[in-house]
């Protein structure tokens, strides 16, 4: 660590860890309910569990992105953050809004809009919090010695993510219009601006871990985020096929969303090419695993499993089934969860001065969570294919088909257990690092 203020990232990373564990608890509640055991129905009905599961996911990823930004921006700009107290205030505001939102879901304080369930009043607080965050980041960049491409791509991703939150806050009487704008948030986040954030973190890590020349890495970063927007913006159409819009979206959404995997393929090829080209033998292999792992798993989960159901003639049958959940899990995991894990694995030893990488625990964390996630994805896929066949093709009623596929949720639970053990290893390793300290400051760090 080169600048004292980078330490503030720790708080955001720690919050991510705690919320992730909580997210998983709610995942199990839903998996058991799908398997026929809904004993918690009276206290935590499925819709409470699902709102909590999805929103915790979003909040812990955002917290991870913010931590990443607070760590990366000083180092790239070559100066301290403009204000650590404000960054801490921003942290507590985020944590409190997150906790209140989750508590609110348990007493019916929500909006029933998938992924955007946080009620309107809290949305305003989120906006204020994010404005504060962006202010700190942009003023730091502005006053910094350098304005690197890596930090600009990261900061632009964060800025547009905030901007795109706004269309999700408008009320519409027409369900289709409501949905139309909900995708401006959800889709244009994960298949648009969040990829800038992912690309920015990836570029930073590759520069640090492989030692390849920054100019080369940043050139390819532009190409990748170029591919993202080229395909991803009009690719929004793949959510519009069947919600009450004109038919031209079938063709436009189909063609452009089918191109979206190119950006993820680009990311994977790029990460491996830089890794092989790099001369530097960075000691933190754990961070390298998570970095390269994210590049591969995002291509598998978002790219391959995305294209698997994005063509209109396929999506017609799979739209809104467990096939979607199959893809959603591996895509979020590979692209965003793993990338947050990568930056945490890289930053923690440097912030705390404790070199707890390449341990048995950090290997278990990597392998068990990934094998578990592949198992979970397979369980959702099996259940999803059977659901589509029975319900959509043969015409069985929804619930009859659900009863027929219940068994796959036991496979889900078994795989999720493996996954969770991996996550627990990761979280233990995280907290074993202890708190960041100024003693870990060094002049020349890479």
């Amino acid at each position, binding site marked *: 660590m080169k600048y004292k203020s980078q330490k503030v990232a720790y708080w955001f990373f720690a919050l991510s860890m705690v919320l992730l564990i909580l997210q998983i608890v709610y995942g199990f509640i839903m998996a058991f309910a799908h398997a026929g055991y809904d004993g918690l129905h009276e206290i935590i009905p499925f819709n409470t569990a699902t709102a909590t599961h999805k929103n915790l996911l979003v909040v812990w990823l955002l917290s991870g992105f913010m931590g990443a930004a607070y760590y990366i921006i000083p180092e790239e700009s070559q100066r301290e953050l403009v204000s650590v107290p404000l960054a801490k205030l921003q942290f507590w505001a985020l944590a409190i809004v997150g906790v209140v939102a989750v508590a609110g879901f348990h007493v019916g304080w929500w909006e*029933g809009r998938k992924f955007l369930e946080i009620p309107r009043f809290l949305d305003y607080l989120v906006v204020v919090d994010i404005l504060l965050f962006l202010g700190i980041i942009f003023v730091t960049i502005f006053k910094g010695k350098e304005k690197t491409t890596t930090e600009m791509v990261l900061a632009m991703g964060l800025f547009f993510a905030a901007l795109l939150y706004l269309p999700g806050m408008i009320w519409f009487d027409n369900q289709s219009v409501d949905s139309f704008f909900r995708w401006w948030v959800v889709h244009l986040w994960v298949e648009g601006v969040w990829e800038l954030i992912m690309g920015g973190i990836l570029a930073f890590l590759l520069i640090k871990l492989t030692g390849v020349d920054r100019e080369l890495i940043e050139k390819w970063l*532009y190409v990748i985020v170029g591919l993202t927007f080229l395909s991803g913006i009009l690719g929004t159409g793949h959510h519009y096929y069947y919600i*009450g819009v004109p038919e031209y*979206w079938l063709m436009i959404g189909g063609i452009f969303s089918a191109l979206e995997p190119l950006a993820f393929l680009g990311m994977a090829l790029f990460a491996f090419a830089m890794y092989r080209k790099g001369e530097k033998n960075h000691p933190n292999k754990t961070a390298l695993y998570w970095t390269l792992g994210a590049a591969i798993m995002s291509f598998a989960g978002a790219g391959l499993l995305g294209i698997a159901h994005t063509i209109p003639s396929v999506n017609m049958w799979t739209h809104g089934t467990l096939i979607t959940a199959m893809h959603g899990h591996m895509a979020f995991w590979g692209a965003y969860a793993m990338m947050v894990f990568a930056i945490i694995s890289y930053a923690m030893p440097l912030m705390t001065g404790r070199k707890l990488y390449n341990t048995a625990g950090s290997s278990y964390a990597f392998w068990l969570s990934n094998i578990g996630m592949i198992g979970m994805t397979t369980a959702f896929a099996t259940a999803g294919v059977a659901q589509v066949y029975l319900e959509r093709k043969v015409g069985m009623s929804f*619930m009859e088909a659900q009863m027929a596929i219940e068994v796959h949720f036991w496979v889900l639970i078994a795989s999720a257990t493996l996954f969770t053990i991996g996550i627990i290893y990761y979280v233990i390793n995280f907290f074993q690092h202890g708190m960041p300290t100024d003693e870990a400051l060094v002049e020349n760090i890479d």
Partner: protein
Amino acid sequence: MLSKNQAKLFFLGGTVVFFLIFLVLSAHTLSSGIPKKTHSENVTAEVAAGKVLFDENNCMGCHTILGEGAYYAPELTKVMDRRGEGFVKAVLSSKTPWTTTGRKMVAYDFTEEEVSNLIAFFTWIGQMDLNGFPPEPDLKK
């Protein structure tokens, strides 16, 4: 070979061009596409009130509608065609969790007026032109 500046130009140029196309298409969809496809003139006060209820109770947290939501409970787009008014009324006004099919639904115990608003909402949804969704089961015997 491609230079960094060319790469930057590709990114900025591509983004601006495709974003503009997206805005134009969106404007068309919102101004004339959706109103036609969804018969927005039929969005009465009851339908709007039904949507508020659907939203406030997070029905999408278990069900899908227009194929969006969670995958725990039945698709509701065509629920009026499939089940008819009497059945839907019974489910919505039930004082105990509806469980006939093996999973529990929250017992909402909606009032008469709330039920009719929700039914108006579902009826409006069911009449949208959804480009062929949900598809007819083609292997049905």
